[in-house]
Each structure stands twice: as C-alpha cells, then as structure tokens.
C-alpha cells in the first residue's frame, strides 16, 4: 500500500507549505481549506479500503496494516505543520494521528458506499482533529474557547472540507494507483 518515501515526504511538505502560504488567502470567511487534514483522511480511507480488498478479513494484523499508513502520513504531515506553526511542536501530529486512527478503524470495520463514507469521514475527521488540537493547546496553557471556535472555525471549516474532500480523495486515489508498492509477507 505505501508509496515511496521519496514521494510521501515531499508531497506532505508541499501540502504543509501550501497550508501556511496559500490557504489563509483562499479562506471563505473564517473557513480555510484544510488540505493536510483532508489528505490524511483520504489516505487513511484508501489504506483501509485496500486492507479490506486484500481479504485478510478481520484479523488484527490486516487491520493495523490498513491503519498504519494513515497514521504515518498523519505523523509526518503533522510535524511539518507544527514546524511552520507558532503552536506546540507535536500538536498537529497528535491531532492528525488520532484522526487517522479513528478514520482507519471505521474505514476497515464499516462497509457501505465509499463516496458516502469519504464525505462522512471528512466531517467526523474535522471534528476529531480540531477537538484534539484544541485540547493540546489547552493542556499547554493556551486560552481556548470551544464554543466560539466551534461556530467560527470548526463548523465552517467542516462545510468547506466536505466540498473539497472528493477532489482530494480522487487525486490521492490516482496517486495510490501509480505509486503504491504492495509488500506481501511470504
């Protein structure tokens, strides 16, 4: 499932830099495109779907194979975001990893129409990511106002993410088909 690191690392770095340079200028009101989150959610789902396709059933190793790819993407992408942010290092990584874990587990366990699942996971992933990130900010002593942020950033961001996730998912699906190298343990 995993593509080459020579693709993954530069791709995630570019997404992080885009998030820090172009995304704030493309905001619609207070809603910014959250491309790193959408990339992690999409890749976690692709990994989960692939794990199920390989018909390893409900065995734990196959579940972890499906989840680990998204978690690794979340860690690398989150660290890049943290390096570009004035927030605590590791905050984005933690938030994205927990999101990837949740999306991966649901993606492996739940069957259904994939387009619906992608959109649903984008919404759930947005909520999980922002709540975990705010929790980390609060734990590190920064003031947090959940109710204000929910109305100002989280809900508008979720709506924007729902619009953008099909394009991001399709793009990564094409990338997955071209670059994946399945590792079979014989």
């Amino acid at each position, binding site marked *: 499932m995993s593509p080459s690191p020579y693709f993954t690392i530069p791709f995630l*770095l*570019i997404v*992080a*830099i885009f*998030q*820090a*340079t*172009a*995304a*704030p*200028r493309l905001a619609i009101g*207070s809603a*910014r495109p959250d491309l*790193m989150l959408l990339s992690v959610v999409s890749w976690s789902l692709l990994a989960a779907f692939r794990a199920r396709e390989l018909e390893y059933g409900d*065995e*734990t*190793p*196959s579940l*972890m*194979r499906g*989840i*680990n790819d998204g*978690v*690794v993407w979340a*860690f690398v992408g*989150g*660290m*890049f*975001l*943290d*390096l*570009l*942010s*004035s*927030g*605590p*290092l*590791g*905050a*984005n*990584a*933690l938030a994205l*990893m927990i999101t990837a*874990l949740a999306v991966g587990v649901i993606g492996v366990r739940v069957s259904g129409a994939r387009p619906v699942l992608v959109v649903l996971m984008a919404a759930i992933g947005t909520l999980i990511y922002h709540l975990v*990130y*705010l929790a*980390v*900010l609060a734990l*590190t002593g*920064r*003031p*947090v*106002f959940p109710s*204000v*942020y929910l109305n*100002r*950033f989280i809900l508008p961001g979720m709506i924007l993410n729902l619009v953008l996730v099909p394009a991001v998912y399709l793009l990564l699906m094409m990338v997955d088909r071209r670059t994946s190298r399945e590792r*079979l*343990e*014989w």
Partner: protein
Amino acid sequence: MLNRPRSRSWVFFVLTLVAVLALVLHEAGQLQPVEDLAQLVIAPVQRSFDGLVNSAGDLFGLFSEVRELRAENQDLQDENNHLRSENIRLKDLEAENITLRDLLKFSRNTPNYVTLAADVIGRDPSPYLNSITINVGDDQGLRPGMPVITGGSALVGRVREVNPRTSKVQLLQDMNSAVNTLIQSSRANGLVKGQSDGSLVMDYIPLEEKVAAGDIVLTSGLGGDLPRSLVVGQVTDVTKRDIDLFQSAALRPEADLNRLEVVLVILSFESSGPEPGK
C-alpha cells in the same frame, strides 16, 4: 499459501510516544536546535512557494484577456502581452515602493531606532493562532520580544520564535498577545489583548477615564519591552458598566493584519528621542 502479515500494532503507539515527547521537549525549550535545522531546510522552499502563489494570482487575469486579443491580431497580442506583464510587474513594484517608503520614513523619523525590513513569507496554518513568518532571523540579529511594525509606525506584533533565517511574529490579534497602551487624548492606561474572534480589546481602563469612539490608542512603553507611541488602533466602541471595576474598549487595528507583505523589525530602541506616532 500466504503467511499472515506481521502485526504492526506498535506503530501508532510508538509514533504517539514520539509526538508526546516532542511536545514536552518543545515546551521545555530543548528542541530549538532541531527546529532551527528543520527551518534551514524548509524556509527556502516556503519562500519560493510564496513567490509562486503571488505570481499565479497576478497572471490569472492576464491569461484570459490574452486569449481574446490573440484571435484578432497575433503581433499586437505579443506586444500587448509584453507590455501588460511589464505593467503588472511595475504596479507590484510601485505598491512595494509605497510600503517601503513608509518604512523608510519611519526609520528616518526615529534615528535612535535600529530597524530591519522583512518580507512576510507565511502565516500560521492553524486558525487558532495568529502569527506570521518573516524571512529574517537570528543571523540578522533578531531576538524574541522585538516589536514589529508596518508603515506609519503601526504595531503589528512581537517576535515570538527565532530561527537562523526565519522568525515567527505573534500578531496583536493573537489570544496570547497583551500590550500596555494608553489613549492618546486622555492618556488613560490600559492593556490591549487579542480576542478569540481575532479582534482587539483594550481592557483595565479605569472607570473615571474618558474614552470615546475615535480615540487613538498608542503603546505606553510601560515595562520597557516596546517603544512608546507606536500606533495600535482606534477605539470603535466602549463598554462601561458601574458594576465593573474597569471599562473596556473595542479597537480597530491600525495595521491591516490580514494583508501584511513587508514589515519592519525594531532591533533596538531608546526610550528618549522623537516619538514615532506623533
């Protein structure tokens, strides 16, 4: 027959441990050398990307008009393309020139200040944190806490993190920002803080002081970490209740914090000398 793939359930827990460790070490200030090294690699890419984004926005309008004119006359269209590209470039230079003239005027009016111009190359990717990244850092003499202004001596924020060639500036509207200020007309003291919605509020104004919409708010210089009389903003609304100990005022920031392109870092200043806001 395929063997069962190896379980890698430890990956999530190991990476989580690494992330938590990074969090703790960052808060303890132990990861600065690592972050500096990473910024050395990332900053040039970020600068280049920011330049590409700016160019793409300028070129978009040109291409649609080029397609219409090309059908009529290819020769005139080629010359038109050249002249329009030059015009866009010159207009961009003109806008930059105006900004830099404002900054130069500030520098000339405050000879006792040592300043350094910097380009804004990025903003914080988190919507909950208000900061910008500028293309100067420790190598150019920056230190945490240095004030950052824009044209017309308007305070933008303060340097928060410094890497060898880049720095992060905490903007006034950040929730963790607090600046000692005073009302220009009444000389009433207060504290300007960023709010969760990105606005500015001046708090702790004594009830007996006169504050009205339109009043100019300046830095007071209390504490010695900021020069006096840098322009912070203008009062738009006053909240005063008898049951409160203090009154507060909503402010419109003097600097457009969402459209920063070039800023000035005040590397050093003396408390005596001409006041920049007057």
